[in-house]
């Protein structure tokens, strides 16, 4: 059984075609890294999977059931967690409220149940003492960890992570990557767009190189990073390596 399958997905904004027939299959407990230049369509792909964007053509399956054209999009979204580059915590709610909002309002958990669940997750990710803080009092790394916890509190079967460390100061990146590493070890199925190549290499079972709205190359991290077949993949990786050295 596959956790997620995307078939011939096409998406454009007006005349601008962003995804040109993307195929992607993700097995249960698999971690797939999406790499590619900025503007190649990584975020759009993730947003389409979460039904945040209407797609033009193609089909998306979650646990072998089609979700494209689903009548109840909310029922689909509660099974998929997404974490954004810019955290997007609710600034008028404290950490506890941020995390318990959806479990209470969407899943119908009682306050006590939702808080038990939240406390457990916050403790696990080193945020126990931040329960009553408001987001603007947290560091970027803490905010992003809260955002991850907020998504996890829904007990999603699939997590989508969109460059979750790109907006962070370099010294805060590690704490967030560590959380994601733990999730992977716990068997969470994940699709993550990232610019952290060494991290992708460590954590991903498979790496997809996205180029101008197409998945140009798929392989194990070793295949992609040491032995890329496509010239454009090679170019992209060389550019990244150069940028890192400078």
């Amino acid at each position, binding site marked *: 059984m596959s956790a997620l399958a995307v078939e011939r997905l096409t998406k454009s904004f007006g005349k601008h075609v962003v995804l040109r027939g993307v195929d992607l299959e993700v097995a249960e407990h698999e971690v797939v890294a999406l790499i590619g230049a900025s503007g190649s369509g990584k975020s759009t792909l993730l947003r389409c999977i979460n039904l945040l964007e209407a797609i033009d053509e193609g089909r998306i399956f979650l646990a072998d059931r089609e979700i494209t054209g689903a009548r109840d999009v*909310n029922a689909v979204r509660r099974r998929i967690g997404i974490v954004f580059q810019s955290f997007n915590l*609710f600034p008028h709610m404290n950490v506890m409220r941020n995390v318990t909002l959806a479990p209470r309002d969407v899943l119908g958990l009682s306050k006590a149940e939702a808080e038990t669940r939240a406390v457990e997750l916050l403790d696990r990710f080193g945020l126990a003492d931040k329960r009553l803080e408001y987001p603007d009092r947290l560091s970027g790394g803490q905010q992003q960890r809260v955002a991850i916890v907020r998504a996890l509190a829904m007990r999603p079967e699939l997590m989508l992570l969109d460059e979750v460390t790109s907006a962070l100061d370099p010294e805060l990146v590690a704490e967030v990557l560590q959380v994601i590493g733990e999730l992977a070890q716990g068997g969470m199925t994940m699709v993550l767009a990232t610019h952290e190549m060494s991290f992708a290499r460590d954590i991903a079972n498979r790496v997809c190189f996205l180029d101008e709205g197409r998945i140009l190359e798929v392989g194990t991290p070793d295949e992609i990073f040491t032995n890329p077949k496509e010239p454009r993949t090679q170019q992209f990786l060389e550019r990244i390596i150069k940028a890192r050295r400078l």
Partner: protein
Amino acid sequence: MAIALGSTAVFFVVVAVAITHAPGWPEVRRQFFDWGEFKATFPEVARAFLLNVKIFCIAEVLILVFALVLAVLRSLPGPVFFPLRALAIVYADLFRGIPTILVIAMLGFGAPALGLSYIPKSVIFWGIVSLVLIYSAYVSEVYRAGIDSIHPSQEAAARSLGLSRGQTLRRVILPQAVRRVIPPLLNDFIGLQKDTALVGTLGAIEAFQQSQIDTNATFNFTAYLSAAVLFVAITIPLARFTDWLVLRDRRRRVAGGTT
């Protein structure tokens, strides 16, 4: 600070000297600033002013609710809701365009004259209805600006957690939007407090109407001063409170750094 106080004092002394040396001053003083007359009219005008306060309070609550409904209607997406959106837009344009006093006159004199048994005849009722209709048009624009100022990523975050559109609006968008627009809302309510005097034109005995009655009886205009003092006593604290909120908001934004 000292310079500011000093220059302000000098300014007022100059103005005061200019006014009190004007040729018509003794006459104006007798007509508008008669202490005996002030003491005599103030209690009565103050009692009438309670009606202004009552109209203000009732209208304010209704406006806050009705304007929010209008603003939400205007923010509904998609072609299905086009008629509702269009209706809300026409409404706002119309009631921001007609002078307040005209709406009050048309409804206040017109509605009771219809002679329908099932609608109230009280001019106070129709005065309040008019104020609610007019001010809701303005206040809904204020709310809407607040809703529009919330970044779409907040909606995306809420929807991605499985919250419905209504839940997103109620839990995430509106609480943030309303907080942002409290200062401009209070500004509108300063205007509303003053405009309660217009209900007096329908014959309701509020502060302005009462002072008019007093003036007509004594041919002395000091009663107007009583009314003015009462209005100012309410609107100035409201204005300072608004300024304070704006300032606090600005400080917070600077301290917080990000949005």
